[in-house]
């Protein structure tokens, strides 16, 4: 899966698109991995902007929770933002809104996770 990325100071925003399901989850996981490797204490934070994601299945959600666990274990931080209405409902029904850091917008995620990232976003 192609995973567009944009850096805001110490934070990398990633922009997956399309469906994250049993057919694409492995590709999504592989594309995420290099960014996760750098998501550690004193290094990068990762924000997944899901505005382009129209559907996410349980397998895709599993990738997100594993990514979040890895980030936490490394002292990093991972958040998701900009859920489309259907994806937001899936998050609520699966209770993923309770176990992942979810923000309405990328800017609000940066405001919480990284002041330098927010400054870079506002200055961009």
């Amino acid at each position, binding site marked *: 899966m192609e995973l567009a990325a944009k850096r805001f100071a110490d934070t990398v925003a990633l922009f997956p698109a399309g469906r994250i399901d049993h057919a694409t989850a492995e590709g999504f996981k592989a594309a995420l991995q290099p960014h996760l490797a750098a998501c550690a204490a004193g290094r990068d934070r990762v924000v997944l902007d899901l505005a382009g994601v129209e559907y996410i299945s*349980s*397998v895709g*959600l599993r990738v997100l*929770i594993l990514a979040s*666990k890895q980030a936490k274990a490394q002292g990093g931080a991972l958040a998701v933002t900009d859920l489309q209405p259907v994806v937001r*409902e899936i998050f609520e*029904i699966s*209770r993923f809104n309770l176990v992942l850091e979810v923000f309405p917008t990328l800017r609000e995620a940066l405001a919480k996770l990284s002041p330098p990232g927010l400054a870079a976003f506002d200055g961009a």
Partner: protein
Amino acid sequence: MLVRFWGTRGSIPVAMSSAEVKRKLVTALVQGAGRGLDTTGKARAFVEQELDFSVSHTFGGNSSCVQIDTGEEDYVLCDLGSGARVLGNSVLATRGPAGHRFHVFMSHLHWDHIMGFPFFMPAYLPGNHVRIYGCHDTLEEAFRRQNAAPSFPVDFSRMNARIEFIRLEPERDYDIAGFRVRAKLQHHGGDSYGYRLERHGKVVVYSTDSEHKQDDPEKMKTFVEFFRDADLVIFDAQYSLADSISVKEDWGHSSNVVGVELCQLARARRLCLYHHEPIFDDERIATLLAETRRLEEITRGDHRVEVWAAYDGLEIAL
């Protein structure tokens, strides 16, 4: 074919508390105020047609036991949780004390799935025949042990029905009681087995106490095939998806979300949420059902899956 649920609660039986009964009564009385409910008929119609299910009913508290009623004399059951006690009493009350034959398919031998047997009255009466099928090599031992000191005062040897234990091999077809039956290994502590039961073109899948870890796409495909074109999938939906793959990973249970996805991929006709979390009250399970129906709706392709939530006493006609 009629699928009848005698026990639907997961892990341990539960009972409604006095406070919950009172809350339902207060809600019902307030909703019925000024409605002229001065006859039994009017009150019954109001309860049945206007009150929310979670106010007028309870999802119930007995642990796992499901009957697949074909209209034949033999009884076909899945699991012998505390719901089996109610079933046994019903059989004796409606069809007399003896001459009954039961075929029981055991998902596994955890306590909540066998605890009804010491209270299953037909097993104590001569002239009845109980055939218990399962894939665990400790099948018979588990039943004998719970009917023995220090766990129970009446020893297994005092059960006067003819009781047989029949070992099945998973992934193999059997012809039992008019059904084509196949068992499938599931992920659960100590293993559990799902059953696919087919008869006259109708398919029921009983899949409880089964965690779907989703770390192996090939394994998921085998469950899709196991559920393929089923008329009804009875599915362990005890946890939320988030819990099942975080704090409750490896606790051996699944979620409503995975149930919907598997049934959609398998093009099953009905999904019945089963093995309810014991801490959930009726309102919470009703919410879970509404959310699951909504999930099915927003993720539906060209195939609709009808979603139910099991309750003690539910009957689904196939």
